[in-house]
């Protein structure tokens, strides 16, 4: 039984538990955070299926956690409200604190640096055009399958220099990695099964990695990992963890922004019209999509010491959850935050990429892919009808959209 929106205002404050993945599958979480931001912006949930945890709901409090990595550790308890599965943990640099985090991140960072993005732009554009020109007209099709997955999987195959014809394996492993094993629609149904599938991924990747370790360094993620001093000789689980991080970070978030962006425009026809009349607005549309969709729902930290946050006493060892979905709708930081406005004055001031040392390494690549999509979409298909809301993922971590039926009307 899913929660009703009105429950958010009638249940006792201390009974609110925003970690329930059903809230996100049903897109029903907004009123809970609206109430928390007003009544308990740093909120203690005493009991949940994941144990007790703090919810940090306001933009400025989230920023404070982000920049204090000495106090709020990613390594002590991982980055999700759900603890890593005991005995099946898979380390990766997003789950590390300095100095090891810094060393590993610096190995892969250059692949998404501005100079390399400039080199990749023409390839991304050419592929995007090909995908868009192949779309059917006057026929219902799944936007997620035909556009969002297709484009982001091609990007991922390029980043890894993965065999082109096998690239959908990457999509599958990404879906395995982020899925909640308790959801019926998930590709795997236990943590052990998830581990086993990701181990198969690591074995396949290890073959490519070993070839690239023997060859001269080149500009793909596997070669960079193989030649990077901080990432060569990783133990199996760390190899699994870092690959998973790069695969999920490198496609799933952008995939959902490609879907969520079209959905948002379809829900705000006035903004869609503004965009058609002035395609230059793509520049501010893109960050607004990323804010509005908020592809990563939360990140979790663990307090290394007693601290105070928003007037609340945080104790060493406490689980501290930054709800990006809430901070991005905080009216004290963003004007009229529940509205989708494609020409906001400071559209890039949002929390979707995180801040501080763990800030999304691929943020500019994500923006580039979305920018090209909309630049090429508008002249070809100025109108796309969304026929039903997206089917969403059962997850409190990744804001996934599994499918969305659309139709491109025949040209007049």
């Amino acid at each position, binding site marked *: 039984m899913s929660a009703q929106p009105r429950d958010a205002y009638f249940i006792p404050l201390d009974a609110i538990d925003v970690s329930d993945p059903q809230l996100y599958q049903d897109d029903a979480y907004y009123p809970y955070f609206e109430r928390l931001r007003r009544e308990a912006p740093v909120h203690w949930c005493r009991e949940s299926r994941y144990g007790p945890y703090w919810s940090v709901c306001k933009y400025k409090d989230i920023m404070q956690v982000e920049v204090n990595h000495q106090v709020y550790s990613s390594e002590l308890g991982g980055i999700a409200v759900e603890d890593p599965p005991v005995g099946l943990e898979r380390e990766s640099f997003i789950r590390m604190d300095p100095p090891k985090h810094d060393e590993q991140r610096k190995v892969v960072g250059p692949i998404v*640096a501005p100079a390399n993005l400039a080199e990749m732009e023409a390839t991304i554009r050419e592929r995007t055009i090909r995908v868009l020109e192949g779309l059917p007209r006057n026929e219902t099709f799944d936007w997620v399958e035909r556009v969002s997955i297709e484009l982001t999987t091609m990007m991922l195959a390029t980043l890894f220099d993965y065999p082109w014809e096998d690239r959908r394996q990457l999509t599958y492993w990404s879906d395995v990695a982020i899925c909640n094993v308790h959801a019926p629609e998930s590709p795997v149904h236990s943590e052990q099964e998830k581990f086993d599938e990701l181990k198969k991924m690591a074995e396949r990747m290890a073959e490519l990695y070993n070839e690239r370790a023997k060859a001269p360094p080149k500009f793909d993620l596997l070669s960079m990992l193989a030649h990077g001093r901080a990432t060569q000789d990783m133990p199996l689980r760390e190899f699994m963890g870092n690959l998973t991080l790069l695969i999920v970070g490198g496609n799933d978030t952008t995939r959902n922004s490609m879907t969520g962006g079209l959905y948002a425009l379809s829900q705000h026809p006035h903004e869609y019209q503004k965009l058609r009349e002035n395609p230059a607005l793509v520049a501010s549309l893109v960050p607004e999509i990323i804010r509005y969709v908020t592809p990563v729902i939360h990140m979790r930290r663990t307090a290394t010491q007693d601290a105070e946050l928003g007037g609340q006493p945080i104790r060493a060892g406490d689980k501290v959850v930054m709800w990006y979905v809430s901070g991005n709708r905080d009216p004290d930081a963003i004007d009229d935050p529940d509205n989708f406005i494609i020409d906001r004055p400071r559209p890039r*001031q949002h929390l979707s*990429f995180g801040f501080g040392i763990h800030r999304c*390494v691929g943020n500019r690549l994500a923006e580039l892919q979305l920018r090209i999509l909309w630049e090429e979409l508008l002249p070809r298909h100025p109108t796309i009808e969304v026929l039903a809301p997206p089917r969403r993922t059962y997850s409190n971590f990744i804001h996934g959209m599994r499918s969305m039926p659309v139709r491109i009307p025949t040209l007049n």
Partner: protein
Amino acid sequence: MPKVTYIEYNGTEHPVEVPVGLSVMRGAVNNNVPGIDADCGGECACATCHVYVDPAWLDKIGTPIPGSQEASMLSFAAEGKPNSRLSCQIAMHEEFDGLIVRMPQGQH
């Protein structure tokens, strides 16, 4: 009012008057100088206001304190150099009149 010259990656120069006390980042953003994104709005939390301080000014402006948040964020920026700074961390001062900063190829 002291003046700062911002030079884009393509060489375009933007001379701007920046009030004392305001950050060099804010001076650019308030005057629509392209090339400084400042995603975090001045919290030293993103490294998208990265600039290269003209070498002649480096002694006066100074370099980030080793181990500081600024040094840490800059260490992840693309094309970091010894004269790299986050412009949100440079507060304008009378003595900085004539300061020249250059922008990287892109903020990241």
